[in-house]
């Protein structure tokens, strides 16, 4: 195998993470926000796997496995919550869910 360095991969992970973050901040739709979170999780997992490959150990991949499991659980619960929110608010606008606003 050829020799390569970690930096390019990490930068890729960083770019993907920041794109996901950008999307999270901009979007108002619940489902798009969930999607953005998935992008960010995936980017973090990429960083883990790259790090594991750098040291030649399976630890990074194991981490990614856990991230995967966690993402699965989170998506299912998150979608159930979005379902309830949709039935309560009759829309998928996150700006409609401001009941916890502090009234001065």
């Amino acid at each position, binding site marked *: 195998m050829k020799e390569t360095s970690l930096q390019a991969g990490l930068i890729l992970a960083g770019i993907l993470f920041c794109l996901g*973050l950008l999307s*999270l*901040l*901009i*979007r*108002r739709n619940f489902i798009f*926000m969930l999607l953005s979170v998935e992008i960010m999780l995936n980017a973090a997992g990429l960083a883990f796997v790259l790090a594991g490959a750098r040291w030649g150990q399976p630890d990074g991949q194991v981490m990614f496995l856990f991230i995967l499991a966690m993402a699965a659980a989170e998506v299912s619960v998150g979608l159930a919550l979005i379902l309830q929110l949709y039935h309560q608010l009759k829309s998928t606008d*996150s*700006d409609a*869910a*401001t*009941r*916890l*606003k*502090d*009234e*001065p």
Partner: protein
Amino acid sequence: MNALIACIPLFPFLGALLLVPGARHYSPGLVKLLGCGSIALSAICTLMVGWSFLQQPALVVNVQLWNWIRSGALQAGFSLHVDALSITFAFIITFVGALIHIYATEYMQGDEDYARFFACMNLFVGAMLLLVLADNLLLLYLGWEGVGLCSYLLIGFWYKDPANGAAARKAFIVTRIGDTAMAVALFMLFYHLQTLNIAGILQLAAAQWSTGHTTVVLIALLLLGGAVGKSAQLPLQTWLPDAMAGPTPVSALIHAATMVTAGVYLIARLHLLFELSPQVMLLVASIGVITLLLAGCSALVQRDIKKVLAYSTISQIGYMFLALGVGAWHAAIFHFFTHAFFKALLFLGAGAVILAMHHEQDMFKMGGLRKQVPGVYRCFVAGAAALAALPYITSGFYSKDAILWLAWQGPQANTLLWIGGLLGAFLTALYTFRMVFLTFWGPQQHHIHHYPGISIRLPLSILTVLAIVAGFIELPHNLGHVTLFSGFLQNVLPATGVHASSSLEWIAQLLSAVCCLAGIGVAYLLYVKASPALERFTQTGLAQYFTRLWQKGWAFDELYDLLIVRPFMALSRLLRKDAPDKLYTLLGGITIKAHHILAGTQKGLLRWYVLSVLIGAVLILTAILLHLKPTTT
């Protein structure tokens, strides 16, 4: 003996204590038993102790009940000091108190707070006994404040009417001003003499200060301030007429016979301090004379029967102050002794009248009652005669005459004071018999509702007898020179030597008699015969002006409102929003502003929260990077 003495104040306190817890549950009979029984037992104990004193007037008993304060030089115990002066006062308090309690069982019948009334009255009698039996000034002050409290409780007894509460507060606040002066006097006494024990003070004072020394004059002045407050003399006399808002037995006991004489007791007790300050003695006498004239004028034009008696009390205590001021100690106490009987009698009689007229107190609405309630009429006239000092046959004559005689010819006499006293005697007779004629003579305007029962008639009768015969124990020089009373007191209070001829004494007595009869005559002309000349006089502009002025008690209330109350309220309104307050409100305001700003960050928007997390992360990362920079190349 010691146990008996301890029982004298104990029984009333015990009565009050027993009456308080079950106030709602006791039957009226039980309340009567506890309320009157405690005072009656106390009176019996006083009589038994007094019997020993009658046999040995020079006796002095000190009973230490228990320790109270032992702090360095301040050694004040709960100790009672009984001598002739205190036993005299204790006798009046318990005996007249017991009679008034019996009267009150019928007067206050049917009132829903029956037990509370007797509890407060018992508490009052207990506190007053502590005052007169106290061995040190601190315990005296405790009793002093106690009677002030009970006065407040009893004036505002019918608390549901806010006017009664206002009168009670006025009484408390005005006497408090005097109490503060007295407290300062106590501080000064302790500072200079290192003791508050009365006997100790009297011993050390003469050695410490020469006559007229500034310190002792100041102390005497402050003590006078306290006495003036409690005894409703100038300038603190405004509370007593308002205090008539309380039930009549309260007015009889507290504001006639006992509490208002506490000032007289204080001055008599600490007579050595006053003798060391002749300026203050002159002041005492002057206050006495001016007050008795002012109050006499005010009593002349009142419509309410109880207000007449209130101003009359102020006036008679003015006589006692006059006596104290000219050094006639025995005469002052003798006047207190007789005054207690006839003033209580007058108040109780007025109460019987008020009850019969179904709580009507305006004299101009009464009339012709001597045919309706002849028993009450006879007792009332006896009391009125004693008050007016009807010559030779009433106790009031002998006590008032003693004062006037000593004001004219005593060692510190002053003719001006004597003339004031004579004028006051004329006014007293005038307003007293005006009261009698308006209430009992003339056409009957109302029908009687309530005829007095035995509980009212018995105390009235006993007091009537006493009002007449109590004077015969002290007869002046030219009439047999009976000195039973002053002989009793001579070991406690110095005797007043008089060097004047007997003929002068006859002249003095004649002049007092003339004043009294003149007063009665004018009252008869005005209110029974309705002579037209006098009627025209009372309708003139000047007379009307003075009538209105005197009805308001010489407008002292308005004066104090203008000089003291309004500036004080204005000052407090000003101080409510001054600079230090702004500092505190500023702190509060800043906090609220900060709250609003921070609350603005809780928008409830999900994106906003994510943004804030991101900003935080970026800041932390920047901080770490800046920290790492020097270590990396």
